[in-house]
């Protein structure tokens, strides 16, 4: 009986050893992590509201392969981002650079905020000016005092 248990256990060990080779990750996790980090910052051009990391489009798949290969070849993150913008322009970047063509994009909201504040300020000022302060007459004052004293 002991021998049988031993054989069973031993064969189980081999079984897991055999399975282990299939369970190995396909790619180096460090490379995958860098690839993920880069592709999260890039737009997929086929389905424009998805990142390159999430997209299932065949082009996105090939671009991930391309980036993986460049990481293996020792390229820096900056070089890989430049590789993407050289081909697809700043449009691929989810975080576009601040430059002459993107000033409106970056500063437009703040300009709108300033404009809105100015309009609101003027409006409130003019409204205050429109309210006439009329002093109470002697009769009104007496009535107010009577009402206040009632309680």
């Amino acid at each position, binding site marked *: 009986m002991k021998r049988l248990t031993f054989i069973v256990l031993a064969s189980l060990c081999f079984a897991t050893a055999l399975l282990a080779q299939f369970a190995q990750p396909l790619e180096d996790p460090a490379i995958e992590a860098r690839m993920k980090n880069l592709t999260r910052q890039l737009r997929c051009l086929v389905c424009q509201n998805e990142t390159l990391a999430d997209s299932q489009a065949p082009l996105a798949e090939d671009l991930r392969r391309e980036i993986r290969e460049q990481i293996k070849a020792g390229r820096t993150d900056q070089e890989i981002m430049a590789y993407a913008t050289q*081909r697809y322009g700043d449009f691929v970047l989810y975080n576009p650079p601040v430059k002459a063509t993107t000033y409106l994009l970056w500063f437009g909201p703040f300009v709108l905020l300033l404009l809105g504040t100015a309009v609101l300020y003027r409006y409130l000022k003019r409204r205050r000016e429109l309210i006439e302060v009329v002093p109470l007459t002697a009769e009104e004052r007496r009535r107010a005092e009577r009402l206040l004293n009632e309680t």
Partner: protein
Amino acid sequence: MKRLVFIPLVIFFVMVAAFLVVLVRGRDPHEIPSPLVNKAAPSFQLPQLHDPTKTLSANDMRGKVWLLNFWGTWCIACREEHPMLVEYAKQNAIPIVGVDYKYSSDTSDERTAAISWLTEFGNPYAITVYDDEGRISIDYGVYGAPETFLIDKTGVIRFKQIGPVTPDVWTNKILPLAKELNR
């Protein structure tokens, strides 16, 4: 003072009008201006579709004004464009080089499919090359086939068409520009 009440309404209608104009007449948001226009065409050396032992490189086209058309048998808009290309090729105005490509996830036999496509629908290409893993198409920033590049004698990209080259684009953009570049 009372008239001020209508200002937000007026602004609203102006915005609606502006959005409508852009929606109806504005450019397609899928058309991304290529950073490659007016830059040197990326170099390539690819095997020819019909004879893999022969290759064609971008340099081989030096001294000519030519069109580079990216297509594939898997691409529906390419099917739409194809008869138009056949018509343009008959005019003998500009040599068209075709790049038949596919994505690496596509395991079908694109080369065979492309050869029978050209026999069936006519061959508008001076030469067709085959980009098996889509690497050259990535170098050219192709994201929605068909895409067509007009390249000048010195190898600089002068114009890019995303989507089919319609008769309007052919007669009003490509032909006049090619004429000017050939001078």
